[in-house]
């Protein structure tokens, strides 16, 4: 599992986990889970198209993920965001289906694009992954306060002169970046589970936004490391383990929050003791 050909997988998967944790914090905070599902789906068509014409698949992923993000942003400016997002998914999946139908390597390619491929990471993909990851993290750091303010109180941000539409556009482009570097590893269908599960779980354990991001990254790293190891041993798809672990962390977080919630009312507890006495 730590053989030479696996080293790239470990490195790339760790980078993916760090970025998914950071960006996922805002995906959950902004209620953008649907967009985080749609953009990887859009990128899937891009990878299929790139394979067809013999271009780099990460390039195809990037172009279609960005197109999907812009499409969602433009359509939702005039209408409901969920409908715009759904239409973007449908359009991109339709293109993906078309491109795949032209391809000769139908089954294997589709499978790895949709569900991820542990052994699929080559050293040529390492450099673009690192660049995209640094870009995504730098963008989140640059827009940290604006993302926080527009997520928590959009109407107030607008009243303070913030262009909330531009911030949303920037955010969707960041999601597109993360998608492009993550899809080759965890797959288009399960990519967003890494952006949702760990950050959603982290929310239950802390009230501090910085700590929540650090915790989301830690949980995402734990998720992919366990997923790679178990996937290597069982030969089951890595996406399966990423999805299951994400859900497991989330449920643990909710259980912890419920337990803490019961403990958080000592006044009520004391009161009931007095009544009992």
């Amino acid at each position, binding site marked *: 599992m730590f053989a030479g050909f696996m080293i790239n997988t470990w490195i790339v998967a760790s980078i993916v986990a760090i970025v998914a944790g950071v960006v996922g914090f805002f995906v959950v905070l902004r209620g953008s889970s649907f967009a985080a599902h749609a953009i990887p789906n859009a990128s899937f068509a891009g990878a299929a198209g790139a394979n067809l014409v013999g271009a780099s698949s990460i390039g195809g992923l990037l172009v279609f993920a960005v197109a999907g993000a812009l499409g969602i942003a433009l359509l939702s400016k005039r209408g409901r965001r969920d409908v715009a997002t759904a239409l973007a998914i449908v359009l991109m999946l339709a293109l993906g289906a078309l491109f795949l139908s032209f391809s000769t390597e139908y089954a294997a390619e589709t499978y790895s694009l949709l569900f991820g491929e542990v052994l699929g990471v080559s050293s040529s993909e390492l450099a673009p992954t690192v660049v995209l990851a640094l870009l995504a993290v730098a963008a989140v750091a640059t827009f940290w*306060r604006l993302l926080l303010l527009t997520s928590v109180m959009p109407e107030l941000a607008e009243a303070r002169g913030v262009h909330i539409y531009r911030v949303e556009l920037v955010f969707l482009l960041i999601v597109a970046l993360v998608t492009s570097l993550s899809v080759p590893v965890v797959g288009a269908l399960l990519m967003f589970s890494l952006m949702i599960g760990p950050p959603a779980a982290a929310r239950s354990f802390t009230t501090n936004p910085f700590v929540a991001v650090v915790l989301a990254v830690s949980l995402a790293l734990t998720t992919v490391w366990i997923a790679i190891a178990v996937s290597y041993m069982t030969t089951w798809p890595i996406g399966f383990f990423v999805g299951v672990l994400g859900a497991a962390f989330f449920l643990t977080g909710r259980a912890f929050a419920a337990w803490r919630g019961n403990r958080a009312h000592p006044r009520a507890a004391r009161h009931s003791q007095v009544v009992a006495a």
Partner: protein
Amino acid sequence: MADLTESTSADSRTPILELDGIGVWLSGREILHDVKFEVRPGELVGLIGSNGAGKTTIFRVILGLLTPSSGRVLIVGGPRPRRNRSVGYVPQKIALDPDMPLRSRDLVALGLDGHKLGVSLPSRRRREMVDEMLHAVDAMPFANARVGSLSGGEQQRVMIAHALISRPKLLLLDEPLANLDLRSEQEVVELLAEIAKEHGVAVLISAHDLNPVLPVVDRVVYVAHGHVASGTTDEVVTTDVLSQLYGHNVDVIRLHGRILVVAGPSPRADPALMEQLGRLSNPVDDTVAV
């Protein structure tokens, strides 16, 4: 409680907020008609009217989110720039996710620099400013609590601290008393009066019920059907003025220091009143929501 404003101008009579003949038309309907009033430093003014009367539209005009069809808004004697640090705003019903990992102090700090690029590094000065503001609104006991899990009154305090930390000269609050229990309602009203009186901030608050703010307001701006009447409570909240404003026979009843505004008998039943109303500019409307 520290001084909340930057040095106030020498002439304290200069209005901080001045609306002059504001008219708003939206999709062929007149929403506001010749709205005219002002708020001076240290004054607490109540913008009173039922839902749909035009209160939120007036706020949107003041905030620069809506360009009026006519008239002008002056803030500290000048036009309103896009990012005006002299206006603090607390929007109506802020729905905060209860699980959100954000403490009261984080939300207050966003009032300081939430509109800027970059990450705010923790510093002693920043922390002191946030603590001072949390103290000012009496929110220290829940400074580190998850802001979404606080009660309505507690959240309102945190929101006021968020709006005040940039030291605005004008504070706008849209329905700050909605959904508060009676005790929190009174506490928030007293806090706002203190902010206005002791620190010279001009405060404009909207409310659908006049009575909770009655003990503290200097003047009221009564809104009905997009028209306003402004002045002291005694000048504005009278049977004559409100009947004219509503275009309907309205009775104002004073009872133990409280004011009840109720719809009177239909003017159609009273030929003399019908004739009087016929001379008014407002159309007669049978439904008077108070």
